[in-house]
């Protein structure tokens, strides 16, 4: 795979607080790479350092296919977390302005703008003033603005925030399509369920440090152990005594048992004590969401910091 962007040993401090500790990762052509983490973990700071809106205290940001130390602004598309549009201008005008700033030919830009407006269900809105757009429509126009110049690398900071489920799906579809056509995509999010479905690799960050970095499927295999939910009146002690159970969460009659990674489901189910009160039972993989929550709260998995072969 061909790397488009490599970030090496990024360090950044605000005043006396170090907000980024030794952050390293890369983004490859045609993949969707996600930076995940709770609020304040350092996602936006990392991205802003890549975009040259801030400068790292230490470390390097390397754009491959580009000579020199400057940022190849024309090859990068960026949708910041804090985003908006100029008021009182037409949708097409602002899109063409963004294209012009990137030195993208205006006739192709116009064509692309119309195509994408149609894709995003905004056909015929090109001459509408920005003021008349709803928040969701505005976000779509911003997204089009960030890809109008066919960037090699697309950086999306929280692209799904504030979108309704329908628009989220449209965004997901378009992002996936861009990646299939060879765009390298780096996106940050705290909405795990969305990312889980679409990203190839992920970089989980907490308090400015790397927690997990690797392919989604490996991360799931490694961390997403089974969990077993049992509905019935049971003692926590009894449940914790079951072999291969790492943790038990109990809320009234509902107990959730987290299993060790090595546990194989059929064997484990056979070993459940016969006197357990089981009204209902379900077994599931731990979702990325739960890994995330665990990490954010600094629970079990968080201690097992590590890298998977990426």
């Amino acid at each position, binding site marked *: 795979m061909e790397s488009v962007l490599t970030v090496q040993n990024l360090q950044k401090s605000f005043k006396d607080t170090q907000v980024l500790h030794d952050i390293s990762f890369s983004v490859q052509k045609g993949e969707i790479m996600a930076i995940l983490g709770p609020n304040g973990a350092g996602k936006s700071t990392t991205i802003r350092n890549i975009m040259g809106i801030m400068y790292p205290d230490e470390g390097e940001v390397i754009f491959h296919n580009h000579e020199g130390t400057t940022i190849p*602004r024309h090859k990068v598309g960026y949708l*910041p977390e*804090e985003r908006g549009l100029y008021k009182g201008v037409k949708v097409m005008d602002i899109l063409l302005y963004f294209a012009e700033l990137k030195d993208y030919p205006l006739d192709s830009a116009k064509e692309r703008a119309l195509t994408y407006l149609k894709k995003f269900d905004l056909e015929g809105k090109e001459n509408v003033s920005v003021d008349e757009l709803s928040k969701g429509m505005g976000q779509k126009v911003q997204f089009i603005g960030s890809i109008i110049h066919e960037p090699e690398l697309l950086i999306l900071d929280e692209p799904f925030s504030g979108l309704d489920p329908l628009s989220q799906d449209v965004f997901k579809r378009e992002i996936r399509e861009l990646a299939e056509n060879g765009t390298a995509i780096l996106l940050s999010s705290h909405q795990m369920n969305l990312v889980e479905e679409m990203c190839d690799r992920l970089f989980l960050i907490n308090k400015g440090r790397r927690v997990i970095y690797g392919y989604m499927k490996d991360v799931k295999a490694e961390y997403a152990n089974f969990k077993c939910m049992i509905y019935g009146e049971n003692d926590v002690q009894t449940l914790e005594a079951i072999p291969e159970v790492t943790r038990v969460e109990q809320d009234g009659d509902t107990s959730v048992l987290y299993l060790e990674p090595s546990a194989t489901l059929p064997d484990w189910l056979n070993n459940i004590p016969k006197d357990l009160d089981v009204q209902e039972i379900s077994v599931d993989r731990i979702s990325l969401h739960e890994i995330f929550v665990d990490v954010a709260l600094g629970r079990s998995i968080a201690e097992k910091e590590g890298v998977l072969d990426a």
Partner: protein
Amino acid sequence: MRNSLKVGKWEMKRNLKSKSFLISLFLTPLIFIFFATVPNLLMDDGSGDENGTTVYVNDSIGAYSMLESITQEQSFLSWNLEETDQSIDEAQSAISSEDAFIQLNEETLENGVVSYVTGDDVSNQFTTQLQTLEQPIKQMQIQQADLNEEQMALVSSPIQFQAQEASAESEQGNMSSGPFAEDPFENGIPALFGGIVLFSIVITGMMIFQSASQEKKEKVAEIVLSSVTPNELMQGKIIGYFALGLIQVTAWMVFIIPLALYLVDDIPIMEYLLTPQLLLFVLIAILGYLLFASLFVGLGATLEDASSGSNFQGMVMMLPFLPVVLIGPILADPNGLAAQIGTFIPFTSPAVLLIRLALIDQWPWVEILIGLAILIVSIWLFMKLAGKIFKVGILIYGKNATPQEIWKWLRA
């Protein structure tokens, strides 16, 4: 630079398409014209018709031809003269409401009394206009008094007041009557033009402030900054609003110059305007713009909501109006201390220089050059500082920057 021009073009186009800019663009000269013409129209009320007042003159002392030449010379006398043999009593009963009657007879020469009758609709100005006759009649009286030429010259020459400077250079001071220029229009009209340019672009400079502040509010800055550097964005704004200012001046001039030509037709405005002095005045105006533009663009980047600015920001906004304080002292003495100090303070020097250079004949080139040098250095300095503030400020969301924070950014 190319990117700055793109930003500049965008800012210009965006404003040219916005209704509020267009309204102010055309409304301002219309208001200007309104204030220039309506008072005149109101004042002319009554006798304001093209034909003017028909003035019947009963002349028994041979002053009619003199009267004719006066009415021709003085364009503000809209009199149609006509000789008559009517006596004042007849005139009193027969005069129509739009006419006037003047009696010039022996009594006029002996006692200096001119009797006149005016119709009901003749404006009050007629009485004032009559004063123009005072000097010529006085002349005739003197002629009657049989004085010799020397005495005549003495009596008729007006009293002149001549200022003498208290310093050693008093010989030079004798030459002209005080520091004021011989011909007030020679420098005055180009300076007035420069003043309009300065005023207009300082006003558009204030739009820069709004634009920077809006950029924060609308949160577009970070998107734009993924394509251009903060400095390019800032310079682009300065260039864009400069062009807007010029468009505004041009639009105003299209209205104002023809109006001015129409109102004051005895002064060759265009000849006075298109002189080498104009270049200097326009240069001063442009420098003034650059100074305030850099100040405002930096300031705008510190404020998300212009209405909630602190006293500090409010004070900076008032800086362009600082010269107003100095206008009085400068008019009193264009080479005085206040004027000199004003020339050397960058915030006041553009306006002060324009006023001073319009008033004085002998330009103090050393002072002008020092003033301009200080101004140019200040512009360079302010651009640097504004760049620093802009870079950090434009990306801070949700709050206004405090003076302490701004100080910190400046030192970074």
